[in-house]
């Protein structure tokens, strides 16, 4: 096998070079992230690991670049729960493993793990559940599964024609599809995104998602109690948020910014949040706008205090959830955790400079935060003022 020695030069010849202003703008964003991290360290002792990461970025160190990412040690191996099946323990013990999605349903916390690396089977996936002191786990036989939290557990779309339901007691069931489902909307429906598009989960089966007549694309969606559907819908002109009570008659859409490329929707009770995501000229992925509703999408309030246009704009959103009290929480790479009150007021929450999954767990709000070689969960029962750590399911 011979590899082209001119490959790097060839790419270089194609690469467009932005002006140096783009570097300066990005550096400014980085400085703000560092300030947030230091402030969070002053505010809460639980973020010691986050500070450790940030200190490596501070000027004044030696001439060495940042060290490589922390590698897992035998300490991590010893933290893997012995009660887990051997295959799951193997996945959690791999150097490359990441908890890519963590959430809670019916009082049970689930972590979905991904470890990529082996040739021919480049990624291994596993799930672990923790219910009190009980820990269970299993493997997922898929390369790019997509997980959605539903009232009865977690829907796992294996992206190859099969869909599974993982229940809070650790049972895995096949989920069938029954076409259009017969009725437009049901009171116990849950909205899910699958590889085939947006669907409703009804009575353990996937049924078609209703579509507004003049907006043929339905993306992420949420079904409020009573069966009212709030969905991201789109036509050729762009994305918006749109609601329907029966799936047949749709209200007028609330338009999102024209730059929108993707929309996320989350809800709890009648509280709903819609995040419009776009891409900047420098290819950064940023939040264009967030709107929140306390009446299941009848009226909307645009979040304020969230920088969506300037050099310090919020970039790289990762997760979003709505707490039972109507507060929306989202995570971004630039700001960590951000809370948006029902009146639209947004502010960064000092918990960690690196936060990924965020989810409601009963009345608590929990976030997965960087903590050395492997992440940990931080939960707050007072709206983000104080935080208590707990390990990811499957680890001690």
């Amino acid at each position, binding site marked *: 096998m011979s*590899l082209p020695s001119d490959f790097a030069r060839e790419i270089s010849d194609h690469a467009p070079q932005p002006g140096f202003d783009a570097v300066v703008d990005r550096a400014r964003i980085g400085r703000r992230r560092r300030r947030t991290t230091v402030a969070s360290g002053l505010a809460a002792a639980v973020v010691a690991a986050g500070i450790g990461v940030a200190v490596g970025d501070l000027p*004044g160190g030696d001439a060495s670049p940042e060290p490589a990412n922390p590698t897992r040690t035998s300490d991590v191996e010893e933290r893997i729960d012995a009660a887990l099946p051997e295959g799951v323990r193997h996945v959690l013990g791999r150097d490359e493993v990441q908890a890519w999605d963590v959430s809670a349903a019916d009082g049970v916390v689930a972590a979905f793990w991904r470890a990529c690396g082996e040739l021919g089977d480049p990624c291994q996936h596993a799930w672990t559940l923790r219910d009190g002191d009980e820990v269970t786990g299993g493997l997922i036989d898929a390369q790019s599964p997509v997980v959605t939290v539903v009232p009865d557990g977690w829907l796992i779309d294996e992206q190859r024609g099969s869909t599974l339901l993982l229940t809070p007691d650790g049972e895995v069931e096949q989920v069938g599809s029954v076409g259009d489902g017969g009725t437009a909307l049901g009171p116990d429906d849950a909205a899910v995104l699958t590889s085939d598009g947006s669907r409703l989960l009804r009575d353990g089966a996937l049924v078609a998602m209703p579509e507004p007549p003049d907006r043929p694309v339905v993306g992420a969606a949420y079904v409020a109690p009573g069966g009212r559907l709030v969905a991201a819908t789109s036509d050729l002109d762009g994305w918006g948020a749109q609601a329907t009570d029966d799936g047949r008659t749709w209200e007028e859409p609330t338009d999102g910014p024209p730059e929108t490329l*993707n929309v996320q929707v989350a809800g709890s009770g009648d509280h709903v949040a819609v995040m419009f995501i776009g891409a900047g000229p420098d290819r950064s992925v940023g939040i264009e706008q967030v709107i929140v509703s306390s009446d299941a999408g009848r009226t909307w309030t645009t979040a304020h205090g969230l920088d969506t246009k300037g050099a310090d704009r919020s970039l790289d959103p990762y997760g979003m959830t709505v707490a039972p009290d109507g507060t929306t929480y989202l995570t971004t790479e630039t700001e960590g955790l951000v809370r948006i009150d029902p009146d639209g007021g947004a502010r960064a929450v000092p918990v960690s400079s690196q936060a990924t999954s965020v989810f409601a767990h009963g009345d608590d709000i929990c976030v997965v935060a960087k903590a050395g070689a492997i992440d940990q969960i931080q939960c707050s029962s007072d709206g983000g003022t104080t935080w208590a750590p707990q390990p990811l399911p499957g680890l001690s």
Partner: protein
Amino acid sequence: MGRWAMQRGNAGMERVHEVYDASYRRLVGQLTGVTGDPVEAEDAVMEAFARAVNNSRSFLDADNPEAWLRTVAVNVTRTRWRRSRFFRDVSHRLVAQESYADLPDDRITLLAALRRLPPAQREAIALHHLADLPVAEVARAVGSPEGTVKARLARGRTALAALLADADLQADPESERSPR
């Protein structure tokens, strides 16, 4: 801020600008093998320069600024997974356009194969064979001993040869991230 620190800060910014003009595109070329995606490489290199601005003392003290940037960029690629959840949804629309549309097919195939290699092997193969860096410099960039890098190179060459011989590669489910 004291006068000395201010002068040093200005010198740092000027130096980063100078190196940016001279090295940005070369670094993107080198990092593209590491990421398997030139757009991801652009992003990592841009982030490395931004960190150089914010770490100007460390950057100015570095014997080899380009090597400093390369190491930072490699580390950045290792944390990119954090953004992948939403990034994947939009990135294919972005990479489908503009700059890399006329890369030859064999380069597209090579990038697809690289994306399927384990990350550590991909880093070694990309920096040594594609970017033409000596093993010692690769070891510094990835933060591993030279012996480890050599072992990764050997395993990576075997794996890459098998992938490139695989006629089914065109069906790579990751192909949406191809620069075409």
